[in-house]
């Protein structure tokens, strides 16, 4: 393409308003949809894990039916978490340098360590200790490929004496206790990647990691609710309403915290009104109006807050069917709202110039490395993996009593 033609095309782009630094004038944000998907996925991991820890660490027995589902959800999403990052890199073949020669002052260099720690030391270990006795039992009862898989997962340890099973439970609890700060670390660090960028007033904010953690908890819990309801629906068994009520109570309080923190962030920005406030206000009411004010603030936060708040107050008077429907709808709304929040942070932060004098543009891309197709596929992949996990580890065939406590189904108890 000739220089003049390229230049004319760029000049003709109507979306660029005001003055942007010439290097910012590209219509494709540097960090595009994959980087929106990345914090969304890690957030779901952290949130689902917190949901599971409520059972192990805080002994919320009523949530027992979703304990394993929550852990498996966390694992399915964690396995996919690095993919958007990898696909986004200019040189994916050099990705291991982040772990092999990390530059320790970079928050992004911590990714490898945080990820490896969370996957290896927390999630996989906790799941293994939780499932170990079951694996031993299933490896003896199951034949074929399934049997081989279970035999492999026993890692050669077949001891299911009472003492060993007790040790498993104790180890599971210890790992869960370690896991909570680890989940905070996993997602707090993602927030820190954005929060530490002082060049960008939309990102550089001390509250950012905390907002990320709470939105992660909210989204992960909402995902657990939705997955539990979908699984029950698929198996034609009624979801335990007490469990759902309890999940939604926790979700409501987490959402209150999340909304309060985000509100505080805006209040602080508006009140302290530094040099960036004009452009950020224009951003919120202009290019981000739909995704920030409509989807994130109204549909994703206010509506669920009101609905869940009413549920908290007058739950007993509301029929179970309505409750279920409200729970499912609010979960989907919250999940959409948090996705919009990630969009607003990642894309929103690149829609204005660091000269604070103009707006850049976002051009919808379908195919390609930064396109919606790939990101959509990356977002779908964890659900497929979760489906496989459910077939293998929550299957009615091997674990018929999934509605009751896992201990009841365990052969050793």
């Amino acid at each position: 393409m000739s220089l003049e033609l390229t230049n004319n095309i760029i000049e003709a782009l109507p979306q660029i308003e005001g003055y942007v630094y010439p290097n910012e004038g590209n219509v494709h944000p540097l960090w595009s949809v994959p980087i929106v998907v990345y914090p969304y996925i890690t957030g779901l991991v952290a949130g689902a894990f917190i949901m599971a820890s409520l059972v192990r660490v805080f002994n919320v027995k009523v949530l027992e039916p979703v304990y394993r589902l929550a852990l498996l959800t966390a694992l399915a999403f964690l396995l996919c978490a690095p993919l958007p990052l990898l696909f986004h890199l200019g040189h994916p073949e050099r990705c291991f340098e982040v772990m092999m020669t990390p530059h320790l002052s970079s928050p992004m260099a911590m990714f490898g360590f945080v990820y490896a720690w969370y996957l290896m030391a927390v999630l996989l270990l906790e799941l293994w200790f939780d499932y170990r006795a079951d694996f031993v039992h299933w490896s003896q009862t199951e034949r074929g490929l399934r049997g081989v898989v279970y035999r492999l997962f026993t890692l050669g340890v077949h001891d299911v004496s009472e003492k060993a099973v007790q040790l498993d439970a104790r180890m599971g609890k210890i790992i869960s206790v370690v896991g909570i700060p680890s989940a905070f670390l996993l997602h707090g660090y993602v927030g820190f990647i954005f929060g530490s960028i002082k060049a960008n007033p939309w990102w550089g904010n001390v509250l950012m990691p905390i907002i990320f953690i709470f939105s992660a908890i909210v989204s992960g819990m909402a995902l657990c609710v939705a997955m539990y309801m979908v699984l029950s629906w698929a198996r034609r068994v009624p979801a335990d309403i007490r469990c759902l009520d309890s999940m939604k109570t926790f979700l409501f309080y987490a959402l209150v915290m999340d909304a309060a923190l985000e509100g505080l962030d805006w209040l602080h920005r508006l009140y302290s009104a530094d040099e960036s406030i004009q452009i950020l206000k224009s951003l919120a009411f202009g290019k981000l109006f739909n995704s920030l004010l409509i989807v994130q603030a109204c549909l994703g936060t206010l509506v669920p807050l009101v609905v869940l708040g009413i549920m908290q107050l007058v739950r007993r008077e509301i029929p179970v069917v309505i409750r279920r429907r409200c729970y499912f709808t609010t979960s989907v709304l919250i999940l959409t709202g948090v996705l919009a929040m990630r969009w607003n942070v990642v894309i929103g932060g690149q829609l204005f110039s660091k000269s604070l004098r103009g707006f850049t543009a976002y051009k919808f891309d379908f195919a390609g490395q930064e396109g919606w197709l790939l990101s959509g596929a990356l977002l779908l992949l964890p659900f497929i993996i979760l489906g496989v996990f459910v077939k293998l580890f929550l299957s009615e065939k091997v674990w018929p009593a999934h509605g009751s406590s896992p201990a009841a189904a365990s052969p050793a108890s």
Partner: protein
Amino acid sequence: MSEGLSRRHVLRRLGGALAGAVSLTAARAAKAAVQKGLASADAPKGYDPSQHKWLMAIDVERCIGCGSCVEACKAENHVPDSPVYFRTWIERYLVLKPKLGAGETRGEVIVDSPNGGMRKGGLKDFKPVPKEEILRGFYVPKLCNLCEQSPCSQVCPVGATFDTPDGAVLVDSKYCIGCGFCIQACPYGCRFMNPVTRTAEKCTLCYHRITRGLKPACVEVCPGEARIFGDLKNIAPDDPIQRFFETRKAQPLKPHLGTKPRVQYAGLDMEVR
């Protein structure tokens, strides 16, 4: 599976593997740090970076906005032809007169940099504004601000971008993973992702030239001597950079961010960010 393989054994082996992985990482990091210290990107053999401290200063009042520097930089450093990327560029500031009776010191401020201010390519010119509407107008050349606390080097996850002892901030394009974090972290918009190499790129102060005793390309071609370049460790008698700091009051861009830019501007206006 043997009965002797207990959970203890499995855990011990897992622990061993983890310890191995961690020590391997540490060893690799140490090796990379040593390599970085010895690397002399684009510099000739025998060049000792510890004996120099390069700096560029800008005299805003001497810039005539001709764009020669932008063009020279593009040619010298093979900056991608696509006109949206620049290692250096010229911004035009037009402070318009306030409306009559508005009670203000200045009116609207127009800032633009069509094609980075590179006018000689036969491309679009700065848009004309009637002279009588203009209160004041000036041009500001922009380049890497050579920050002492460079946020771009700080955030690079692999250390591909680094501060040299002689005052430049460079990118090792054979090592950069192309994550774009440094581009986000630069408050001055000086970095971009090279669409060809898919790595981050920026002004190097023409490191291949200055280490051979030449001036950076932009300084070489500047007809108004708006760009003043020198070696602070080897100040010559009547050195332009010495004279600049003796005669002009200068300030950096966005000092509140604490990046401590070493590039200083004389004659800066409050509108420049």
